[in-house]
């Protein structure tokens, strides 16, 4: 069996918070340095999104990890700012100096919303919300993004692992066990992180792994793998609960004649796609 094989699982919904503590947060604290050493290339879709951010804008990276998206290409450093949020102190210790510059980071959960409403021009959440173990929690984390974005022009990009894996990734995803209803889309799995010995030297890392004398340390991280269309539907469901309907500013001229006391909030899905084993959705908020 390849070390990249994943293990089907079903997350415990009795106590999702403590489940994630064991199968996500504790592991990232343990593998922080090794994980960070493997995470330096930006995904093309994310790089293109950040390249389009205008001067003076401010954004949030919810689940910033080692801070690779807090950096900008040399000529755009300081033209816009991205604030990093993560649950791992050890990853934030790396992120706060990402690229050799002082970055802005806060220790928080993506289920927290410690921001002024509407404060950000853009928000990204890359390879993060697939670590939340129930649909409700994944939806809540998207609602936090929507709430902290400007309702008039806020833009967002969410990126998660897909059930459809790139051939290069060599990960084999078991086919879903059974489909009961729309609440149970996608696939819950544990994905082994194999720590090479040079990184497994820290005490905490040794204690929390099942390391023996000869074998490398293996940590099983929880993921919810998204199926096609699932992320888009979740973003729209999250928005609708916040009285934000799906729309497109171009296609709605003159559709509403009644006088509105408050402007109505909308979300436009800009792109919904798949890139190298990941699903992503890019969206924009607007008001009318």
């Amino acid at each position, binding site marked *: 069996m390849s070390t990249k094989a994943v293990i089907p699982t079903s997350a415990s919904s009795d106590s999702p918070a403590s489940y994630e503590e064991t199968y996500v947060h504790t592991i990232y604290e343990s593998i922080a340095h090794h994980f960070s050493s493997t995470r330096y290339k930006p995904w093309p879709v994310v790089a293109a999104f950040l390249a389009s951010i205008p001067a003076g*804008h401010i954004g949030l990276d919810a689940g910033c990890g080692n801070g690779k998206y807090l950096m900008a290409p040399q000529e755009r450093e300081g*033209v816009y700012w991205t604030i990093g949020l993560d649950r791992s102190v050890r990853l934030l210790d790396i992120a706060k100096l990402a690229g050799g510059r002082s970055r802005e980071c806060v*220790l928080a959960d993506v289920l927290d919303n410690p921001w*002024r409403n509407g404060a950000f021009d853009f928000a990204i959440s890359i390879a993060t919300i697939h670590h939340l173990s129930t649909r409700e929690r994944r939806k809540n984390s998207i609602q936090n993004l929507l709430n902290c974005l400007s309702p008039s022009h806020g833009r967002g990009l969410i990126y998660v692992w897909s059930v459809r894996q790139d051939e290069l990734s060599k990960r084999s995803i078991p086919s879903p066990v059974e489909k009961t209803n729309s609440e149970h889309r996608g696939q819950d799995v544990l994905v082994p992180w194999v720590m090479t010995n040079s990184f497994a030297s820290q005490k905490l890392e040794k204690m929390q792994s099942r390391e023996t004398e000869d074998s490398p340390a293996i940590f099983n991280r929880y993921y919810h793998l998204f199926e096609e269309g699932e992320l888009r539907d979740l973003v729209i469901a999250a928005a609708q609960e916040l009285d934000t309907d799906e729309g497109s500013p171009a296609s709605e001229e003159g559709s509403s004649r009644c006088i509105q006391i408050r402007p109505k909030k909308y979300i436009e899905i800009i792109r919904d796609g798949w890139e190298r084993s990941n699903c992503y959705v890019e969206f924009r908020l607007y008001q009318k």
Partner: protein
Amino acid sequence: MVRLITHNLLSCHVKGCTRNNFPLRFQDVKVELREAEFNAEFLRNFVPRIEWKALVDAGKELGDTSLPEELPEMLGDEFLKKLHHVLLEIHVEEGAMVCPNCGHVYKIMSGIPNMLLTESEI
């Protein structure tokens, strides 16, 4: 790091604490000044996004009184230099931020504010 650019965005998120929960007040802070690259284009465009009074007051709490009480109409270089310093060069390394409404204390350690709440506070 907690610089005032971040402080100006943070508000208390304890369950039920939804009013008068911004800005958080600094307490027992250890501050470091570090030079940052000046970018007039960023600052000019960023100004409308700032909660001005909160920034001026937070600057004072950290010992900087250089910003005017009212945001000037003309954003000249001299003003932008002061704004740059207050927003991006004052680093709060240790201390805490306290909610003006519920009194919750958010600790700052090694430049990172801990905004996590315990389960009963969420």
